[in-house]
């Protein structure tokens, strides 16, 4: 008969460990170097249209910013919660129509005051996302995907059929600002960049908050998350609405920049494919993933669109790329690279430790190079 007492655990299991080191991921770049990288990236983006002022290039830049905002926004919901939406074009559409119609109905003078309407595109999209989200989020992940696309088509049909309000298939036009030449694209570009920075700050804030941790827990095991006291419905809805807001901003930007809104381009079924590919390629559910994905893929997509727009060839390329990425790097580029980097660092450290025996305390940090610790005797 064995009696158990608090102190019966083998001493080896309770070996004291340095507190601080345990909580830091030894292979993660420091806070400062990460912040520097972000600042450098956005400084480059800010300088871009000044260096490359050709309107054909800055126009691609504006579209890239639209995708950047939308991809970061989309990732806040779909990336963190694991609920993949392929119907966020609903909010792209609402953003476009809200801005176009408000400009029309309020007789907004073409120019800077039109741009001031763009945030309303986000707000209207977010407002629509509350009831729509409450309905769609009643179902779990796979069914949810199907419902999102269904909702998207419902709204597209509504936009076609409420012609008195939306202009139907003839679309709605926005009178372009009276700017000319190389500066025309700049305000749109910088509004997009500003919105992207805001989206990124929100995404970052969520990722490090208790709330965001709850979203990630929902992604991994929703029932368990609920069982640990997370209000799952509320958490999902908040993220859904936040992501709709940023996609709505992208829509508003599109409406004012392109100057025309049509149901099939506003509630565009391929829009979510484009966004999803960008986020998956970059790294679903990571902070830099959508940024990387959008900055690399949006210009390529835009270029293909300009070259072969009518043939929708770019969609075929996109579809193939999506499949290739899912098969080869299912976690996306950013997580895969960081995994490789970690294991490379770990093995390098191991080799260094083996080469220099730890005598005299002159050794630098010694960190376990993998899941070591309590051995369970091969139970797994």
């Amino acid at each position, binding site marked *: *008969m064995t009696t158990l007492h*608090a102190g019966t655990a083998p001493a080896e299991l309770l070996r004291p460990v340095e507190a601080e080191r345990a909580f830091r991921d030894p292979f993660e770049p420091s806070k400062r170097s990460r912040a520097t990288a972000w600042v450098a990236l956005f400084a480059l983006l800010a300088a871009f249209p000044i260096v490359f002022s050709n309107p054909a290039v800055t126009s691609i830049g504006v579209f890239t910013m639209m995708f950047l905002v939308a991809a970061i926004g989309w990732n806040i919901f779909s990336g963190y919660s694991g609920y993949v939406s392929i119907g966020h074009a609903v909010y792209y559409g609402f953003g476009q129509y809200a801005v176009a119609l408000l400009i029309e109905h309020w007789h907004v003078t073409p120019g800077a005051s039109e741009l001031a309407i763009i945030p309303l595109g986000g707000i209207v999209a977010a407002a629509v996302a509350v009831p729509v989200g409450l309905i769609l989020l009643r179902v779990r992940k796979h069914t949810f995907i199907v419902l999102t696309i269904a909702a998207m088509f419902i709204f597209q049909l509504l936009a076609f059929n409420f012609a008195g309000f939306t202009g139907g298939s003839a679309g709605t036009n926005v009178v372009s600002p009276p700017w000319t030449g190389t500066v025309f694209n700049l305000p749109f570009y910088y509004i997009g960049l500003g919105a992207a920075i805001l989206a990124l700050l929100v995404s970052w804030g969520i990722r490090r908050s208790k709330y965001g941790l709850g979203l*990630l*827990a929902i992604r*991994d095991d929703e*029932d368990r998350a609920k069982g640990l*006291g997370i209000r799952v419905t509320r958490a999902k809805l908040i993220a859904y609405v936040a992501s709709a807001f940023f996609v709505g901003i992208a829509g508003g930007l599109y409406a004012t920049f392109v100057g025309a809104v049509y149901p099939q381009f506003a509630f565009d079924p391929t829009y979510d494919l484009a966004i999803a590919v960008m986020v998956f390629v970059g790294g679903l559910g990571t902070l830099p993933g959508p940024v990387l994905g959008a900055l690399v893929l949006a210009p390529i997509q835009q270029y293909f669109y300009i070259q072969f727009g009518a043939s929708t060839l770019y969609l075929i390329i996109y579809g193939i790329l999506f499949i290739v990425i899912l098969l080869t790097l299912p976690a996306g580029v950013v997580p895969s690279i960081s995994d490789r980097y970690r294991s490379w660092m770990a093995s390098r450290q191991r080799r260094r430790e083996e080469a220099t025996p730890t005598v005299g305390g002159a050794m630098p940090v010694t960190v376990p190079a993998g899941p070591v610790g309590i051995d*369970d005797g091969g139970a797994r």
Partner: protein
Amino acid sequence: MNLLEVDEVTKAYGGIQALAGCSMTFEEGKINGLIGPNGSGKTTLFNVMTGYERADSGSVHVAGTDVTAASPDQVFSLGVGRTFQLTRIFPRLTVVENLHVASQRDGGWMSEFSRWSSPSEKVRSKEVLDFVGLTRLAAEKAGNLSYGQQKLLEFACIMIARPKAMLLDEPAGGVNPSLLLHLGGRIKALNEEEGTTFVIVEHDMEFVMGLCDKVSVMHQGRCLCAGEPETVRSDPAVLEAYLGTDMREVAR
């Protein structure tokens, strides 16, 4: 005082009567064992008690509060945490992140948007990780842990919320002997230092008999008998339920 009370609970899955009028009480501050052959309804009882399943009839009370129709988060907020027969951790979160999912969710609306890794919370999670001996793996993805380590992590995830009661479903399953000894020590320590009540479903008789103050035996969805380990071990009905297995043999 009885912290957990189950009264005449029934639960059927199609033709299978998983719980058939099960009544049981678990006293506050005690380490309770819950044993019984496979399929006798132990896991189902846990599910009903913690809101993961709804009883067909009967009632469940936690410290006097009726939780028969409560949801898992409501039961959890009453201070009843549980683990699962098949471990449920969040595989793509790190070990520390796993801990913080459960910790301190009572600060109201705004606190939700504060950092999960505040210094005070770090101290607490360090304490808990030290307690279960997983500190070295803090920054590792939970899915990379071995099964036994995941069992410990799941235990720690509940523990960090300082529940009044912890319901452990086969904590020793797939865990090697030295780790099991460690786990038993942790349970005993928590019970003595924090007064945590335990209900432990376990097939390892040595583990159960050595650890528990009281043992309840389930058979075919009912409570067969309950009492001190010594009494239960020699109960003829229990021997019968275990199909003639001599418990004295098993427990020796």
